[in-house]
Every structure is written in C-alpha cells, then in structure tokens.
C-alpha cells in the first residue's frame, strides 16, 4: 500500500543552485531568438517610461524653479500717490512692528520712474514727456522663505491692506502657488499616462511571453516529464519579461537623457528667459532608478500573467 508520502519540496530545493545561471542563459537566448517580438515589448516599455519620465522631468525643473523663486519672495506695497508724510510714517511703523515685514525698502515716485526708464529704454522718452509722474511710491519687502505660506503672515497682509494710504499689496508667490498646482497636475497626468502605458506595455510583454511559451510548448512538456519543477519551467520566462522590462527602462532613461542634454545645449542658451528654467537639471538618481525599476516591474508583471495563466497546462 502507499506509504505516507513525504513532501519532497521541504527536503529538496525547488530551484537548484546552478539554476539561476540556467534561467539567465535561457532568458537571454529566448529573447535573442525572438528578436522582433522582444523588440516590440522593449519599445512599448521604453515609450511608456519615456512619457512618464518626460512629465517627471518637466515637473522636476518647474519644482526647482518655483523653489528658487520662492527663496526670493517679495511683497510690494503700493501707497496712494497723494500719501502724506504722516500716513507714510504710519505705514512704516506698521511694517517695522511686524518682524516678517520689517526687511523693507521705500521706493519714491522719482526712483520708480527712473527704474522704468532704465528697464524700458524705448519708452523712456515718452515717460519723460509726461506732465505728471504716474508711478506711486511703494515699499518693497523681502520675505524669508517659508514665511509666505503661514496663516499669520496672511493676516498681517490683510491688516496692511486696511491701512487708509495703501492702494495695493502684491505678492509674487501667488502665481508660484498656481504653478505648484500645475506641477501637481503634471505629476498626476504623468503618472496616469505612464501608468496606463506601462500596463499596456506589461500586456504586450505578457503576449510576447505567451507566444514564446507556445513556441517552446514541446520543450516545456519534456521538462515536466523529466521532473522539472514549475518554478524551473517558468523561471526563464519570468526572467525574460524582467529583462525586457529592465532594458525598456534603461532605453527610456537613455533617450530621455540624450534628448534633455541635447536640448539643454541647443535650446536653453538662446531662450533662457522663455524656457531656460526647464533645462535646469536632469532627473535625480532616485527617480532614474525608479523609472528603470518601473520597467522591471512591468516586465515581470507581464511575464507573470502569462506563466500564471498557462501554469495549469501540463
């Protein structure tokens, strides 16, 4: 009669020690043997990660620009052109009393006019012919980084606005706040688009692996009959998907870096005011690793889908 059956898997290794080399050799050989289909899979992964990487790169540079500008945040307080010396002293006293607003500089109407003339030389003559100086006196206040986001600071600005001699208070970080929102949107769009494309790429890899498995159907059957474990049979296919995904990730990063540095060299110097800030720096190494790892995971997931669905076929 049948004796109590030991579980061989507990006593014997499922994957022999020399199997990792076998997995790798087999995966590389199969990838090479089906070059065209493998190329499609790698290209799909590369395209999806390139799209994701482009969004990440754009948001990275915008983010850095925003941080740079926020380091020099400034509030401009425009006074009524008819402001009296007493009213101006009251405003000055208010600013001096609040430490966040204390770093101030008074700009007279005359100085404002001079600045205009120096910035816009073509219009200097027109400005000089005006009967009356149209520029109001103002205070330029340097705000320390991080202060502008605080609720206390906003309430101070509100109180400042209520002073009778104040015409207007301008923040230059309001639009950086809008820019931040745009960056968030870009990140979301990038991740969503990259995610959808990566899924499509994973399914492409799944199909490629499925085709390869069909191609090696007889070999798989022989392997099963001579006692190869499922892990040993599936291992090379999983490694194949993993390799394709990783290669796709590396290609995406390489193309992205190539395009970025070429654009930085050719476009950025001639248009530094318009979009020069977009070519500040390439992705940090963490994000590069993340992109390549994304390819690896997508590849592995694709091949896992294929081998999992064909597991029951023996």
């Amino acid at each position, binding site marked *: 009669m049948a004796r109590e*059956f030991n579980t*061989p898997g507990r006593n014997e290794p499922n994957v*022999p020690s020399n199997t990792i080399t076998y997995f790798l050799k087999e995966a590389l050989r199969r990838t090479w043997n089906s070059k065209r289909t493998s190329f499609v899979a790698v290209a799909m992964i590369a395209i999806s990660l390139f799209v994701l990487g482009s969004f990440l790169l754009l948001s990275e540079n915008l983010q850095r620009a925003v941080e740079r500008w926020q380091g020099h945040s400034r509030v401009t307080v425009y006074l009524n052109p008819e402001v009296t010396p007493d009213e101006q002293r009251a405003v000055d006293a208010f600013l001096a009393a609040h430490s966040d607003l204390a770093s101030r500089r008074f700009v007279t109407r005359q100085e404002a006019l001079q600045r205009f003339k120096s910035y816009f030389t073509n219009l200097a003559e027109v400005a000089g012919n005006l009967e009356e100086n149209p520029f109001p006196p103002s205070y330029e206040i340097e705000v320390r980084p991080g202060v502008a986001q605080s609720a206390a600071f906003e309430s101070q600005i509100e109180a400042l606005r209520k002073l009778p001699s104040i015409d207007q208070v301008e923040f230059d970080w309001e639009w950086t706040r809008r820019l931040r929102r745009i960056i968030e949107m870009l990140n979301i769009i990038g991740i969503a688009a990259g995610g959808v494309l990566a899924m499509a790429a994973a399914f492409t890899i799944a199909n490629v692996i499925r085709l390869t498995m069909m191609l090696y159907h007889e*070999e798989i059957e022989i392997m099963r*009959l*001579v006692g190869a474990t499922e892990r040993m049979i599936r291992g090379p296919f999983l490694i194949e998907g993993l390799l394709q995904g990783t290669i796709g990730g590396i290609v995406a990063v390489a193309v992205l870096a190539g395009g970025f540095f070429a654009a930085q060299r050719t476009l950025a110097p001639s248009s530094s005011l318009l979009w020069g800030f977009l070519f500040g720096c390439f992705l940090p190494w963490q994000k590069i690793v993340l992109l390549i790892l994304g390819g690896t995971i997508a590849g592995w997931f694709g091949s896992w889908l294929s081998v999992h669905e064909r597991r029951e076929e023996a």
Partner: protein
Amino acid sequence: MIHFYHVTKRFDRYSTALHDLTFQIDKGEFVFLTGPSGAGKSTLLKLILRQITPSEGQVVVNGRNLNTIRRSALPFFRREIGMVFQDFKLIERMTVFENLSFILTVLNVSPREHKRKAYAALRAVDLHNRMNSYPLQLSGGEQQRVAIARALINDPLVLIADEPTGNLDPDMSQDIIRIFSDANLRGSTVLLATHDRDLIRESGRRVITLEHGRISDEKISVAERPAARGDNVFGMATS
C-alpha cells in the same frame, strides 16, 4: 514497486483504453509489456508516469499513490522514473550533451559532474563521440539511444521504455536490452513495452500481454528465470 488496483482508463464514453487492470511489479523486476497496437501499452506507461490519471482504480508507484499525489510533488516523483519515450522527446535545439546535462541541472547535480556523468551514460549506449551533435543530425536509432542514455543518467528507481528498440537493428536491440539488464542489476525496476517477440522470447523475463485494454496473458518467457524477478502478489493473470 508498481501496483495497479482495478485500473480503468476511459478517454470518452466510447473509448476505454484499459479495463479493470490489477497487477504488481516488484522492486528489482524486469518485466516486458507486450500486445498489439492499440492494446493500451502506452496508456499504461503514461499512467505510471502520471501523465494521465485513471478513470477508476488506483496506481501506486514506489509507495506513492498517483491519484492523490500533489501537483507540487509530481516533479520529484518523476525524477525517480527514467522514461524512454516512443518519440524520444529530445530537445532539438540542444546538443546530445545538453539534452543530458539539462536533466542533471533539474536534478541539482553540480555542473562539474555533468560532463563526467553524460559521458558515462553516452558511452553505455556507444554515443560518447556524438556529444556535440544535435538530435536532428542523428539517425532514428541514435536518437533512441540518446533517449535511453538520458533515462539512465540518474540510475532511476524505475525505468520505463516505450518501444525502445523500435528503430534499431537486431544487434543493436540486443545491446540495448543488455543496457536495460545492467540497469536492472544495479537495482532499477524495468518495465519495457515492445512488439519484438524475439527479444521477449530470448529474455527469460516476466511478460505481461495486453489485448483490448485487458491482461490476456502473464507468464515467464521460456529462457531461464532471472534472479531479480519478484513474485506476483495477486498470484494470477488478470483478464
């Protein structure tokens, strides 16, 4: 070693390959399985390798009930069986050496041992000088011998062969039978399916004859009775 208890195998309602088969092959036995085409020989061998499962009855091999064996345990069970397939089942893209080396990889034999073991197995079938050839560069008989070498490479507990001499000339057939006999003397239980009545007649081994899926005859061939033969526990020829 191999026990069949009232085994029936039906492929569909109209096609029954084996009918209520009961027999036993003891450890160390050398048994011939014979019968006309379509008698159920290959089906019986497939049941032993657990390529298929019985519709009714129990198959127990080396103490393992193949009806209840877990899927995860199947590869480890199959590693104890050396099988020579009728269609050889060699991997065409691999050389003769690689076909054998692959089995050793599956069995977790150190790569340093592969060449020595493969050479020894191929020498036994006189193919040690064709190690780097591909199966398609070999004749049918040579492919058959590679398949035998592959089955023997790990000194299996059970050696099963489906028409292993089908592509060989009489001299080579005798050589092959000698190889199986040597494996039997080393301790392997051998079950050999063949049409070749001359081989069976001269062997002096136990013979199970199948006809229409039933055991029609079970006897010892006319030559002297081999020492390794075990007793039939059922003590009868089941029909």
